[in-house]
C-alpha cells in the first residue's frame, strides 16, 4: 500500500526520453590515413562508422545524427547536406532510387540507407574536389572548423527541438532508463529534458599539425564545456594534445586505439552509450592528460610560457617591443632576459594591473616548483581560461 508523504509527488512516468544527437567528425586527412593504410583502410573505417551510426539510430526512434568531414583545407558536411548544394535528397531522391536500385534497397531499414548513401555520396564529392595542390600544400586537418560546424548545428537543433516540444518535457526522471528512477542531481535532471548532444571525433592526424588552430579549437572546447556537450575522441594514430584536453574538459571519452582493426568494437562499446547510460558505466578516460598549450605567437606547443596578465595570452618568448600581441598591454620584461639566459627553461611571467608594478620576484620563487611539475602550472592556466576568459 502506498503511503502518503509530502516529499513524494505522484508523477506518472511517460516513456518520454529525450533523443540524442550524435555528431561524428571524421578526420579525412589523406596523409594521416596513408600511414595506417595496412591496419585500417579508410573505406573500412567509414563502413565501420556507418554501422556505428546505424546502431546509434537504432537506439531510439528520434535519435539524430550529423557527420562532418574535417578535410585538408576545409570542413565539410557529409550529412545532412543542405538542399541547394546537391541533388534534392528526399522526395526526388526516391525517384532516382527507384530507378537505380531495385533489389538490395529493400533489405535495409530506410533511414539507415538514406544516411549511408548520403554520406558516401558527399564523401566521394569531397575527395573528388580535392586538388593535387591542396594535397601537396597541406598536411593538417581543419579540426577547429569542423568543431565549429558541429557546434552550430547542435545549437540549431537544440533550439528547434525545444521549440517543437513546448519547452522542456516532464517526467523523464521517472522514465529514465526504462523506469529506473534514480535520484540524480538537478543538473543531470535538467539535461535529460533537452536534446542530448555529443560529438565524436575520429582523429588520425598528429598534434603538431593542429597547433596553428589552437585558439579556435580551445574556444570550441570551452563552448562545449559550457553547453555540457561531451567530446569523445577516438584516436586511430598518433596522440593529439588538444584533443586530450577537449575530452578532459568536457568529460568525454578518450581512447587511443592500439589495435585499429577492432575499430568497430571500440566504437560500439566505448562510444555508443549516450549521456544517460554513461551515468551507470565506467568510462575509459585518461588520467595523464597532456595539458600543454600552444603559444599565440608561433603556434608552438609549450610546456611553460609567458602569460599576459591582462588577457592571458600565452607566448613562448617575450613578444617584440614588450607588448602583448593580443591586447596590446605594455609588459615589463624586467630582468627577464637574464633569467631566460641563465636557465634554459622558459619561465612564467606575471604582471600586476598597473603595468609599471612588478611581482616578478614573487613569481621567481615559484619557478622551481613550476619546473618540476609543468602540468600543474598549465592546469592553473587552463582553469583561468575556464572562468570564462575569451581568447581572441
Amino acid at each position: 500500500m502506498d503511503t502518503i508523504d509530502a516529499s513524494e509527488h505522484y508523477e506518472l512516468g511517460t516513456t518520454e526520453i529525450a533523443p540524442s544527437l550524435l555528431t561524428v567528425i571524421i578526420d579525412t586527412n589523406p596523409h594521416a590515413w596513408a600511414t595506417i593504410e595496412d591496419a585500417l583502410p579508410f573505406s573500412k573505417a567509414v563502413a565501420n562508422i556507418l554501422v556505428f551510426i546505424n546502431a546509434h539510430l537504432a537506439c531510439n526512434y528520434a535519435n539524430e545524427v550529423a557527420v562532418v568531414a574535417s578535410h585538408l583545407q576545409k570542413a565539410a558536411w557529409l550529412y545532412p547536406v543542405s538542399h541547394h548544394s546537391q541533388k534534392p535528397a528526399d522526395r526526388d531522391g526516391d525517384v532516382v532510387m527507384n530507378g537505380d536500385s531495385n533489389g538490395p534497397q529493400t533489405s535495409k531499414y530506410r533511414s539507415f540507407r538514406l544516411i549511408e548513401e548520403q554520406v558516401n555520396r558527399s564523401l566521394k564529392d569531397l575527395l573528388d574536389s580535392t586538388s593535387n595542390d591542396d594535397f601537396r600544400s597541406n598536411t593538417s586537418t581543419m579540426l577547429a572548423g569542423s568543431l565549429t560546424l558541429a557546434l552550430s548545428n547542435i545549437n540549431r537543433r537544440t533550439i528547434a527541438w525545444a521549440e517543437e516540444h513546448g519547452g522542456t518535457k516532464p517526467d523523464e526522471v521517472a522514465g529514465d532508463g526504462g523506469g529506473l528512477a534514480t535520484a540524480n542531481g538537478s543538473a543531470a535532471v535538467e539535461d535529460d529534458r533537452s536534446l542530448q548532444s555529443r560529438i565524436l571525433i575520429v582523429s588520425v592526424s598528429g598534434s603538431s599539425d593542429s597547433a596553428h588552430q589552437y585558439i579556435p579549437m580551445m574556444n570550441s572546447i570551452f563552448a562545449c564545456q559550457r553547453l555540457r556537450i561531451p567530446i569523445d575522441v577516438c584516436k586511430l594514430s598518433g596522440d593529439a594534445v588538444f584533443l586530450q584536453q577537449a575530452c578532459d574538459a568536457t568529460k568525454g571519452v578518450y581512447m587511443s586505439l592500439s589495435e585499429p582493426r577492432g575499430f568497430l568494437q571500440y566504437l560500439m562499446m566505448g562510444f555508443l552509450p549516450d549521456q544517460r547510460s554513461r551515468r551507470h558505466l565506467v568510462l575509459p578516460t585518461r588520467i595523464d592528460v597532456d595539458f600543454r598549450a600552444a603559444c599565440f605567437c608561433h603556434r608552438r606547443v609549450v610546456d611553460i610560457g609567458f602569460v599576459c596578465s591582462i588577457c592571458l595570452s600565452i607566448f613562448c618568448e617575450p613578444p617584440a617591443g614588450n607588448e602583448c600581441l593580443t591586447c596590446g598591454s605594455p609588459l615589463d620584461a624586467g630582468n627577464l632576459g637574464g633569467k631566460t639566459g641563465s636557465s634554459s627553461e622558459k619561465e612564467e611571467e606575471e604582471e600586476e594591473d598597473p603595468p609599471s608594478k612588478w611581482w616578478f620576484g614573487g613569481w621567481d620563487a615559484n619557478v622551481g616548483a613550476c619546473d618540476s611539475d609543468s602540468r600543474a602550472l598549465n592546469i592553473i592556466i587552463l582553469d583561468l581560461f575556464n572562468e570564462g576568459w575569451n581568447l581572441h
Partner: protein
Amino acid sequence: MAASMSRPLEYLESLPGTTFKKLYQQPSTALAIFRRMLPDLAKCFVMAMLYLKDPLPTSDLEKWVRSDSKRQRDNALSILGRLHILSTTLTDNNVRACMVNDPFASSLRQALMGSDDAQSFGVLSQTSNESTITVADLDEYARRQWEGVLGYMVGTSGLGQRDINLSKGVKQLLQAGHLVEIRNHHVDITKDGFGFVLQDVNTQVWHILILYVESAQAIGMDSVEVLSFLFLLSSLELGQSYDKKGMTSVQLRTLTDLADFGIVYQESPDATRFYPTRLATTLTSDSNALSTPASGSLNGPGQPGIPGTGFIIIETNYRLYAYTSSPLQISLISLFTNLKYRFPNLVTGKITRMSVRRAIDKGITADQIISYLLTHAHPQLRKHNAGQATSSSSTMPISVLPPTVTDQIRLWQLERDRLKATPGFLFKDFSSLADYQTPCEYARDIGVLVWKSDRKRMFFVSRHEEVVAFLKSRS
C-alpha cells in the same frame, strides 16, 4: 516502467522460447524489439556484445557498470533474459560469460549492416504515383478511423459526429477484449474500456494489436507471422507507399483488418499497395511527441499533425479548461470533471471529489486520469511549469500538472481503495537470516520484490523464475 512499454513487454514475455526464435529471424523484428522494449543500459550491453566473437565474461560486465548502478544493471540483464536476447554460458575455462543469442544477434547485425536477403523492411511501391497521398491525408485518415473506434466505445456517435463504418471485425475484437459489452443491441463500455480510452494513443494501439494477435491465433492465423508483420509495419516510413506483392495471405488479411483501425491505409482492399499511417510508424518509438500526434490532432481540425499539441489547462484550484470541440474528448473529460460551460472551442469545468469518485466507481483509476491530463496538457502549461522549475533550484522532478491536483486525485482514490492485490509468490521458511537476506536483496535489485518481513523471514515477489534460479545457483 510506463504502461505503454510494459504491456507489449508483458505479452512478449508470456510467449514460449521457440516463438522468440521464430520472431527474431526477421531483422525488422529484432530492431523493433531492441528499440522499443529495452532500457538504455540493456541497449548498451547488446550493442557492446553484438560484434564480439567470444562471450563476454560476466565479471567484465560487472566491472563496466558502476557499483552504485547495480540495480539498473540487474534489471537490464533480467529483461534481456526474459526476452531471450541474452544468455549466460560457461566458457572453456569455467568462467561465466554472457552472449547475445543467435537469431537475435544475426538479425540485428543484418538490420544494422544491411544484407541481401528478403524484404524484411518492406518493398517500396514502384508504381508511379498518379494519386499521391500526402502525410496530412494519412494523418486525417488515421485520426478519423481511430476516433471512430473510440467514439464507438464511448458512444458519442450519436452526438453529431460523422459515422465511421466500423467493420464487424473491429467490433468483435473490442468485445473479445472486454472493452465493450453489447447488451440489448446497445454498446456499453466496460471498466477496462474506460481505462483504455484514457490512455495515450500509442498504448491504445499496442493494446488493440495485442488483442488482435491473440485473436488471430483463435481463428487459425499464425500469431508469430502476424506479430512479425506488425514489427515490420513499425519500421516503414510515413508517406511512402509499399508494394503488396510477395506478401503472404496472412499478411494481406492482417493488412485489411488493420486498415479498419487506421493503422494502415489502402485505397481499396484490392489495391496493389498500402501506406502505413503515423499510428504504425510510431509503434516502436518512445518519444511522446511522436507517439501522440494523432491525439494532438484529435482536438480538432486546423492543427492536424502538430506533434505534442495539448489542449488542457488545469489550475491549482482544480479548474480545468479544455480547448477542444471534439465530442470524443469532451465526453472523456466529462468522465471525471464537472463540466460547467461549453463554448465553440472551449469547455471549462472543475475537478471535484464527487466527480473523481464517480469516475473511480466506473473503474477508472487515478493514474489513468492523471496520465490523460498529462498527455493532453497544453503547451502553455508545460512551458509555465518548466519555467518555474528552472528558476527554483529544486531537486524535485518538475511537474507539468499542479502537484496539489495530482496528489489530491490520488488521495480521493485512496479513500476508497484500501486494499491492493498483487499476484505473486511467497518465499518463506529460510533456515538462517543470511539465507533469507541475499535472495531478498537480489529480488529487490531486479525489481520484483513486493513485500518483505525481516522478522518472519519471508518475502513476496511478483515473478519467481529468476529468484529461483538465483537460489539454485547458490545452493
